[in-house]
């Protein structure tokens, strides 16, 4: 699969490395050359320095033949614009956008954009841990398979305290 990632921050870089490791073809776009340091010297994917809302830059990343497009820069508006160029202009089959603002997220989701919001995800995660005693943020079976809240947990199965990871 050919994937374009715009924004080589923590999330973008981690995803790029993961996908390359799985044998996918990956192109990462970022304005800052230094951002690519996160990928390490061994990274075998394509790295493009440029503005992700410039169609010429996206063409250089091979957007015309991409299967997936991920908008992961730090700016919501930048992510929204890049995603809309990918979806409406270049007809990339699968496009996902990160948006920090939950309100903008709901507006653009209504408009047919696939989105996720770390703000609501993060708040829900902490809420569930404190209120329902489930730590979904911890690597383990609860990720992707949320267990129903039981209200009381067996001794020894209580999730560990939140840690910085």
């Amino acid at each position, binding site marked *: 699969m050919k994937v374009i990632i715009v924004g080589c921050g923590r999330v973008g870089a981690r995803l790029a490395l993961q996908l390359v490791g799985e044998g996918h073809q990956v192109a990462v776009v970022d304005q800052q050359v230094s951002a690519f340091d996160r990928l390490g010297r061994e990274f075998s994917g394509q790295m493009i320095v440029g*503005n992700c*809302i*410039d*169609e*010429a830059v996206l063409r250089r990343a091979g957007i015309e033949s991409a299967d997936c497009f991920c908008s992961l820069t730090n*700016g*919501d*508006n*930048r992510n*929204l*614009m890049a995603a*809309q*160029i990918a979806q*409406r*202009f270049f007809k990339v089959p699968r496009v996902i956008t990160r948006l920090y*603002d939950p*309100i*903008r997220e709901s*507006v653009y989701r209504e*408009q047919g954009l696939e989105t996720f919001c770390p703000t609501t995800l993060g708040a829900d995660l902490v809420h569930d841990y404190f209120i329902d005693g489930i730590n979904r943020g911890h690597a383990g079976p609860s990720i992707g398979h949320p267990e129903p809240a039981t209200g009381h947990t067996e001794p020894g199965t209580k999730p560990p305290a939140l840690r910085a990871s």
Partner: protein
Amino acid sequence: MSKEAELPYVIIVGGGKVGYHLTRHLLERGYEVTLIEKDAARAEWIEHQLGTVSVMVGDGDEMAFLATTGIERARVVVGATGDDEDNLIVCQLAKVKFNVPRTVARVSNPHNVAVFRALGVDAPVSATEVLMGLIEAELGSELVRGVAVKASGTCLVDLALPLVSALVGKRVVDIVLPRGGFIVCIVRSGKPLPPEPDTVVEPGDELVVYSQLLDVAEVGEALARA
């Protein structure tokens, strides 16, 4: 109702040089204008200059803030910041969430003009594109007297025909311009004539031609060759 009250309400997002002068100009013409500026110090400066209370400090892309600006009765919203992505999102939110009838966006990267139009902005305006059109007109052909660029991305080109032009003696119907361009008006001895199909071009005529933007040089060359 007074005449002032009937003038449409305009919201401008971004108080840089473009936003500031636009606001000032519209106020001078009696429009009701609200300027939205992120930076409180800049907003205060503009307010001081304009002597009005029409500057609001806030984020033009925050829905809750936009809702406090009276945006639902705005006839025009202008995205005038220096960032294309911010101008696009402001215009889209205005259109989709507040049913603003007309959105105008300042576009820095000329490639984005087509993108903005496809994504629902009514009038994307690129200073670079306008300047490019004028420069190309200037360099491409000495025949070009003036260019008026329209929000639709097309332009009207005012062409002076040299006496030797091969167009002299041709009928309007026989003059074929590239990419769907056509003659809008013939100026003869300083007077405009509507171009009838049988109108014959005379020495010294001036032609006003409708054409796609950035094809100005091409139009000039085609006419010079014709």
